[in-house]
């Protein structure tokens, strides 16, 4: 920033900021100490909601958040000085001024040049209209790291209801004690409120709410749920119906029209009032002046489900399972209302914004994304990495030294020889790779099995003579502890191995720069759990609607996760790392062809189907080669350009050649 000001000789009013949840941004001493996001939201809400603050005028003892008060009093008039703020900068700025960083960020979005936030703020219909509705139509939306965008879209539209959710609804105060006077008052406000909503929606620039499409809003709230008493009764009836549905002993799968028909026959609930459920509940909660909205999450979930199920007839499916997959004997019924079609959630974004860019390091193969997201791309291009030296070394290990094929294929994964060979591979690598190694397994269950077996065979003990071993678990706190210790061990020369799981926390968000990840080993191909009914339903839908074969999609999904995992090792031009794919299936053209181009181009015929010994030799050579001094001058003209080079005609041509148009 300072560099730009100096170079261009003028001050630019450039503002970039990051936005996150209250949990990450809160600086209130009490509230920020809470551990869960929901608690923080609830507590914050109870300190800053408008009616609470109104009460304070009459009752000065009512607690409020002084940071918010301060911000509300002064902060809105004074714009935040231009600059680039990340979350910590925002917090520091907030502390200095005594303003709430969260609301400051929310407010500053309106005049910021660049806003960075989570996908959910744009895709999740429940949050999107709070945060993103005032963004200008001309803004450019960039989805970075978008290789998982379809899953995010689906998650944002899917609802899972367990018996516990229903129980919590049941015990909720709202449905039990009903204050008649308050409810009546609420009804009067509702009539006014709906009018307001109408006015707001008419100015078309707002992001349309996919939960409640425009045409529905034009209609009035149906009479049957217009008064609050009726609505509460209505919700109760709906709840009873859901409970009845969960009391089953076999798996049911049905589409939303089927569900609606059933509900009409059994408890006489029409489709129309269901649609308004979410909106109605929101207005009710608002007018009832309920401070801690965290208690109402269960009820909100139910009402969202009601609205979604009645609004969309296509692209969704309802699956009711009496048992969980892992524990087939314990009754734990779940109702999955799952979205099959990611294009539903992303459609409003495409419609509203002029340019949308989807980008990621592992977006491969490119042509599948337009198909599953249902859009027509203006331009598609894939770039290779321009490197001054070949700093990545992908190796496909297919056999052990005893020539037994290594694979995590279902039939052979329990095979003693395969597990032993995997162990030997890790052992050999731990002896020659410096500092950190990250190993990925296909699932937690598989990892537990293998590690137990290694322990019995004494492999684990041998590995520990070379490096310390850390394991990722499903507990987030435990994992972050393990990560911290892992980094410490890498830092002071002891060396460490991190065993983790593809699709886990480590594989997605955490970078292993330089010495933190000199080698990544991928044990097996990370296919999703194919027996899941939701996945099966989705595959069927993909086949029927988009003509994508099941196998194609599964391979695509597995390879993007594999690429994501091994990509953790290379995080910069000066970085280097080994990428070891330990499964003979990677050598096949259909798997290899789905890796991103920047990995693919470094896989030569010589690095396919290696044995462990050959891998060790190649790795040793590679590591020594990479340890040779690497100067800045070597990069010049290749991966580092001077200003003159950048402007030269020749270089521009070269760049356009690299971009492979699809």
């Amino acid at each position: 920033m300072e560099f730009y000001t100096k170079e261009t000789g003028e001050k630019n009013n450039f503002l970039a900021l990051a936005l996150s949840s209250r949990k990450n941004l809160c600086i209130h001493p009490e509230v920020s100490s809470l551990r869960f996001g929901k608690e923080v939201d609830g507590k914050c809400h109870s300190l800053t909601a408008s009616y609470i603050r109104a009460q304070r005028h009459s009752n000065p003892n009512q607690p409020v958040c002084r940071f918010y008060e301060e911000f509300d009093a002064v902060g809105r008039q004074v714009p935040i000085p231009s600059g680039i703020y990340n979350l910590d900068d925002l917090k520091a700025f907030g502390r200095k001024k005594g303003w709430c960083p969260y609301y400051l960020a929310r407010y500053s979005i309106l005049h910021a040049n660049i806003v960075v936030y989570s996908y959910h703020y744009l895709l999740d219909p429940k949050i999107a209209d709070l945060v993103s509705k005032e963004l200008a139509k001309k803004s450019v939306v960039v989805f970075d790291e978008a290789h998982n965008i379809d899953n995010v879209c689906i998650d944002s539209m899917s609802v899972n209801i367990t018996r516990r959710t229903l129980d919590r609804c049941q015990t909720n105060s709202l449905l039990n004690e009903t204050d008649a006077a308050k409810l009546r008052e609420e009804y009067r406000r509702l009539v006014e409120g709906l009018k307001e909503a109408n006015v707001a929606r008419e100015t078309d620039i707002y992001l349309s709410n996919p939960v409640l499409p425009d045409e529905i809003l034009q209609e009035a709230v149906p009479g049957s749920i217009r008064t609050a008493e009726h609505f509460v009764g209505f919700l109760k009836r709906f709840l009873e119906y859901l409970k009845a549905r969960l009391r089953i002993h076999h798996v049911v799968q049905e589409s939303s029209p089927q569900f609606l028909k059933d509900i009409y026959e059994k408890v006489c609930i029409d489709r129309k009032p269901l649609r308004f459920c979410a909106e109605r509940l929101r207005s009710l909660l608002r007018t009832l002046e309920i401070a801690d909205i965290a208690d109402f999450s269960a009820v909100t979930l139910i009402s969202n489900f009601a609205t979604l199920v009645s609004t969309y007839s296509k692209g969704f499916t309802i699956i009711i399972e009496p048992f969980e997959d892992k524990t087939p004997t314990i009754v734990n019924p779940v109702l999955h209302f799952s979205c099959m079609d990611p294009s539903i959630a992303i459609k409003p974004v495409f419609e509203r914004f002029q340019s949308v860019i989807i980008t990621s390091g592992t977006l491969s193969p490119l042509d599948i994304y337009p198909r599953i997201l249902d859009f027509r791309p203006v331009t598609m291009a894939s770039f290779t990495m321009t490197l001054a030296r070949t700093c990545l070394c992908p190796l496909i290990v297919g056999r052990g030294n005893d020539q037994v094929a290594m694979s995590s294929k279902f039939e052979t994964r329990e095979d003693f020889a395969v597990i032993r060979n995997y162990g030997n591979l890790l052992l050999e690598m731990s002896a020659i790779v410096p500092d950190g190694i990250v190993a990925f397994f296909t699932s937690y269950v598989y990892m537990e099995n293998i590690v137990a077996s290694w322990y019995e065979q004494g492999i684990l003990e041998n590995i520990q003579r070379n490096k310390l071993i850390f394991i990722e678990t499903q507990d987030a706190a435990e994992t972050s502890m393990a990560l911290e210790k892992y980094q410490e061990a890498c830092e002071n020369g002891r060396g460490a191995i991190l065993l983790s799981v593809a699709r886990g926390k480590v594989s997605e968000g955490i970078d292993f720069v330089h010495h933190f990840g000199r080698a990544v080993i991928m044990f097996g191909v990370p296919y999703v759990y194919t027996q899941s009914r939701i996945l099966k339903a989705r595959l069927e839908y993909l086949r029927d609607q988009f003509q994508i074969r099941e196998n194609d999609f599964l391979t695509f999904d597995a390879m993007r996760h594999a690429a994501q995992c091994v990509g953790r090792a290379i995080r910069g031009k000066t970085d280097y790392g080994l990428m070891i794919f330990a499964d003979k299936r990677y050598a096949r053209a259909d798997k290899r062809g789905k890796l991103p181009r920047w990995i693919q181009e470094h896989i030569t015929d010589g690095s396919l189907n290696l044995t462990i010994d050959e891998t060790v030799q190649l790795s040793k050579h590679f590591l020594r080669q990479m340890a040779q001094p690497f100067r800045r001058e070597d990069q010049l003209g290749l991966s580092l350009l001077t200003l003159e080079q950048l402007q030269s005609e020749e270089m521009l041509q070269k760049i356009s050649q690299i971009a492979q148009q699809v």
Partner: protein
Amino acid sequence: MDEEPERAKRWEGGYERTWEVLKEDESGSLRATVEDILFQAKRKRVFESHGQVRLGMMRHLYVVIDSSRTMEDQDLKPNRLTSTLKLMEYFVEEYFDQNPISQIGIITTKNKRAEKLTDLAGNPKKHIAAMKKAVNSMCVGEPSLYNALNIAMQTLKHMPGHTSREILVIFSSLTTCDPANIYDLIKTLKALKIRVSVIGLSAEVRVCTVLTRETGGNYNVILDESHFKELLMYHVKPPPASSSSECSLIRMGNLRLTPSSDSFFKKQHLESSDGGPGLTLGGYYCPQCRAKYTELPVECKVCGLTLVSAPHLARSFHHLFPLDAFQEHPLEEHKGDRCAYTIKVFTCPACSSVFCTDCDLFIHDTLHCCPSCIHRQGTS
């Protein structure tokens, strides 16, 4: 674990791809690449010398040799330890040849401990003998970088400020087992102006990168045996003295060999009992106290004066005035001038006489002055 079989047989070792370095030209001949490789290697060292810099003439160097389990690896022939010690012998000789008034000491580290093989001393024979003995020692456990550096530091910190304090670590393992935080030690080393360089035998280890960067040393990883030798030889040349190191005048006794008849008493015998040369007639007398020594350079045991001979000083002196790198020309311009077969020829910038690659190396590495220039000075 004792059950583990020794990987001694040749065919049990790993695959090696020695042929990968070579590339054929269009006619399928390997000669061009081989020549090119040789030529590049020869030229490299000359290029790296950098004009007039102040160099430290009196050096105190501790060499830390890793003797952990990984030294038994057979990627250097016959194994890493033997190969390292052999190269070290050569290094010690070369070191004293180039830096006659400097001292060296050797530390080994294994089994999480570090011990001193030899103290800081100026006598190459003692070091070489100690290393010859060490070849047969067992390589066990893990090295401890911390302990090794700590031992070296304890001695080096008492060395006078006008000399250089250096540690060279030959590190084969990828791990280190340390009793305390090594980053604190690195800070101390930096404060004491001890320069630590590392030669890695397997791969780049983070802690060494930090160590060398902080203390101003070099970090290199070997590619093969010849590269290893080259990297070791790089440390023969004294490092540039930092401008902050003090300057001082040192008293030295400059001696000549004096033949004498009184061969019955030798100071030399007092300090080295390991059957050195027996009774000799010749010897050096300390100008202050008249103590007698058979070998130079040495620090007088009686009065503490540094005793050197004129050639020693002269050899150290050339570091102060290094010979400029010769200019490179293609062969065509000087066909049939002199010397044997070579790819390129070199001309001295002062007298513009022509030399081949081998002569060029000989002049820069051994003579340190251009014979043609000297010849001219003599005649004029």
